[in-house]
């Protein structure tokens, strides 16, 4: 099977052609211009993942929310489950850049970390 996809590893957005066998295993990747593209194509066909960025409520800070991101990309299908957990959380100020605010969110093995100071 041949799958066409656009790489989203960086803003260049390479058009890639991925060749898969019956077991959904990647046989070849073409059209990518870097190694990240090949990895993205393999991940996207076997286990699509995304970085999740959002905000967490802060109590007693200079601003009402602090921006956060996942420490690593999480499975695409778990984004909304993670959002629910994150939206139920309130953290106390001060929050520092890089603070781990939630550990192992939704058993993904990925942490939610602060991306600014509040």
């Amino acid at each position, binding site marked *: 099977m041949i799958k066409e996809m656009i790489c989203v590893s960086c803003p260049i957005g390479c058009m890639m052609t991925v060749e898969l066998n019956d077991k959904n295993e990647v046989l070849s990747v073409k059209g990518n211009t870097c190694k990240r593209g090949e990895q993205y194509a393999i991940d996207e066909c076997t286990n699509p993942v995304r970085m999740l960025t959002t905000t967490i409520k802060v109590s007693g800070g200079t601003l009402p929310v602090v921006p956060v991101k996942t420490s690593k990309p999480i499975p*695409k299908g778990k984004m909304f489950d993670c959002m629910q957990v994150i939206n139920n959380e309130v953290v106390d100020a001060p929050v520092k*850049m890089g603070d781990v605010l939630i550990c192992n969110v939704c058993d993904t093995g990925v942490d939610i970390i602060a991306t*600014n100071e509040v």
Partner: protein
Amino acid sequence: MLKYDLVVIGGGPAGMAAALKARECGVQKIIILERAATLGGILEQCIHTGFGLHYFGEELSGPEYAYRFIKELEKTDIEVKVDTMVTDILPGNVIVATNNKDGVMQIHTTAIILAMGCRERPRGALDMPGSRASGIMTAGTAQKYVNIDGYMPGKKIVILGSGDIGLIMARRMTLEGAKVEMVCELMPYSGGLTRNIVQCLDDMGIPLKLSCTVIKTHGIERLEGVTIANVDERRRPIPGTEQYVECDTLLLSVGLIPENELTRMAGIIIDPVTNGAIVDEYRQTSRPGIFACGNVLQVHDLVDYVTEESQIAGEGAAKYILSKGKSKSRNGKDIHVKAENGVRYVVPQNINRSTDKDVKIYFRVADVYKDKRVVVTCGDEVLYNKKKKKLAPGEMENVTIKLDDIAKLSSNEITVKLEA
């Protein structure tokens, strides 16, 4: 009297990178004037990742990208005044600025770097009938409400314009529980980055309606819905294609305008296509000693390119300051860079023949093209010729012209164009 070697107007990514580079190149007394309460500019509300892949080789969020420069600035004695608004640039490079603490200041300086960024085209710039109901705002305004102020401006959303901020907000609002009905784009292609269409619309199952626009808004106090219609190739609504879409919020992502009021007041020549100053390879404007970089010069897709451009301006300003304004002989020996045949604009528009480095020319194309050659010529001579698989107006391109080639150009004009 306040006296500086360099005044940088704007403390976003452009201003910070320019100031740091000028310091690295040996400029002593530098001050950054920032209108907002903090440094960082628009990056502070761009909480999504994708910044820094080129410059840092890492995928950072907007605030993280800004933080690195803010921390670098803190290590220097570069002065920063926040909550400070520049109101005029007088002859002789005197800046008029004001804030609550200092009142009105006149700042004398050897060089100025303009780094004021851009702003979004507002509703008033569109001919869209309807009352001034609440719920109609730019995508960037909604971004600030959600990411900084921490509340949602609506539940059922229509987005007009597929610029990057609109796409990013489509995903953001969906993640926060809103229903984004659709993104309407007037043009037959999106103005946003491909990755944003994939990650923000396709991932979230949000339809992108091309050649489609909002022709009317409904609701008096609060927006109740919009009428959309398809448009023909001349962007006129096609009768009979009207459709009512219920929504409480309309986000506009219909373009960015470089914020060049000060530039115009200073009498600097503006490029009618970029809406930014006409500059040379060091980003010096038509007024000696005044440089421009970042989104005030040309609207960029990537902050990484803003940083790169601002470092060029910072280096240029340093050369100007350290040589006391004699760094360049501009005796009509400039090489003019022309955009032609599918290339909408180029930056820089001028190159000094006596320049001391390779020059990267940035450009945007006018339409979506496949398998075209990017060609740079000077008379009959071909300086650059490379095939590109895909070119789109939403993605800035660049070509590098070698220093050796510039020195021996046969005429004073080079042309960047597309060929089959």
